[in-house]
């Protein structure tokens, strides 16, 4: 049998010089923090309102050394991860159900639009009344944010399946369940992952906002306490800590994504 030359060699792309990019990124960080610090020290920015990086990082260090922050951080993370997990599972299930069952999609379409149009952060006070001041109300708020993002992406991803690939699998006698497992879900996976990047942030927003409004634990509580005493440094320290945590989780998701979507040609 005739063979073609091995065309499947990896094509190396020219990337922007990674060292240069990293150096510029660090440079930007140092320059902006330095400017902030200098402007505050020189009195151009009022430290009472704007604080300054050295004080913020000192505060973060203090929190960590004293152990004060760990309990709060753990609380927030547990709430966010629970909201994230529940939101993903519920979003994917609802997305699959509505994409597969026409009638369900037709009936629920207006309701889902209305729910999605609702600014759900406003639900926080009601959720606190329903679920109390503990973790449950924060998880519920996070779920209400995560669910819709994952749901819409799953729904859309399932609808975007290549009809030729789908027909080919049908001709190979795939059952409905096999189609779901081998065709629909892998096809929707790219959509679902893009929703995860957005929704991990929202899971944390749900937890922190919930805590901010009413709780006795968590980063949101820490920020609310700091704000109550006009402690700008504490507010910033809480915010930065939260974003570092989100960044870490997002990197982990990206790793997983790169592995699970390794079948895609590099753009």
């Amino acid at each position: 049998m005739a063979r073609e030359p091995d065309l499947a060699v990896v094509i190396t792309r020219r990337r922007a010089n990674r060292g240069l990019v990293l150096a510029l990124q660090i440079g930007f960080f140092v320059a902006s923090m330095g400017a902030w610090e200098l402007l505050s020290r020189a009195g151009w920015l009022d430290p009472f309102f704007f604080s300054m990086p050295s004080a913020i990082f000192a505060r973060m260090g203090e929190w960590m050394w004293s152990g004060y922050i760990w309990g709060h951080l753990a609380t927030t993370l547990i709430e966010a991860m629970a909201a994230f997990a529940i939101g993903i599972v519920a979003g994917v299930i609802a997305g699959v159900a509505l994409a597969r069952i026409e009638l369900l999609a037709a009936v629920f379409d207006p309701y889902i639009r209305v729910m999605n149009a609702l600014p759900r952060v406003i639900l926080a006070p009601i959720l606190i009344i329903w679920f109390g001041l503990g973790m449950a109300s924060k998880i519920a708020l996070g779920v209400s944010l995560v669910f819709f993002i994952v749901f819409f992406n799953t729904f859309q991803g399932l609808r975007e399946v290549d009809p030729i690939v789908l027909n080919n699998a049908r001709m190979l006698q795939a059952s409905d369940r096999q189609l779901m497992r081998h065709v629909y879900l892998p096809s929707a996976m790219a959509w679902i992952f893009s929703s995860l990047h957005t929704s991990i942030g929202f899971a944390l927003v749900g937890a922190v906002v919930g805590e901010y409004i009413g709780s006795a634990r968590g980063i949101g509580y820490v920020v609310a306490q700091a704000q109550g005493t006009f402690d700008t440094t504490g507010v910033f320290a809480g915010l930065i800590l939260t974003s570092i945590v989100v960044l870490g989780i997002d990197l982990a998701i990206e790793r997983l994504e790169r592995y699970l979507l390794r079948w895609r040609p590099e753009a």
Partner: protein
Amino acid sequence: MARVEAEAAAIAFEAITVRFATPSGAVHTVMSDISLAIAPGTFVAIVGPSGCGKSTLLNAAAGLLFPPAGRVRVFGEPLEGVNPHATYLFQADALLPWRTVLQNVKLGLVFRNVPDAEASSEARAWLRRVGLAGFEDRFPHQLSGGMRKRAAIAQAWIVDPRILLMDEPFASLDVQTRQIMENELLGLWQESKKTVLFITHDLEEAIALADRVVVLSSGPARIKGVYEIDLPRPRDVAEIRLNPEFMALYRRIWGDLRDEVMKHGSDGAGGPGHGA
């Protein structure tokens, strides 16, 4: 001898008519009253001008499309749902992009609940057969167009279907690769004697490959002529084109087909193509 029924046609189109409603509300008749019987074990090519509904006919045989009038019988049984005896080679890539070559080739066996070890070893054997040994763990996008077609052929053949439906499977390949693939296809078919229904707009390809060539007229599609191709086998698609008999057949069939292509190509110039 109790084998009277053995000669039921592999695929029988019985008075198939397909109409679509156009967005403007008019009814467009894609094909009307097509009847055609395809004997088991034969290689039948259908040619016609592009857009004449060849693919529609193939999809009706696949059970992917239900003709509003008429019926398809497969080995004597009226077809309901996806044709269980057939696999399909598409013009575009139809491999699952998220599965490796090996996983793709064994897909039909996995769907039939064949144990995984057995399915894998059979898929490996098929990959050797189509010259893809060593590429088991590649993803489709890491292969060339010709290699993807080979994988698709292995995927379609591994379930040992009685019928293979092909919709211009090699149209996207360059001429050399295409001839290689056509010869490999003939080689595989010669060993197995499956029923093949092959759609193409390339008359040379149709004559080189098939036992019978069916010419469709354009809009709405009707059967314009059926030609027996009694060229010797085994054939080499490049050499057979130089055979004087091939050229005589080509001239005869082209005479029929040309009218249709011209008619189709000059729609605006007053051809009787479209009914209201």
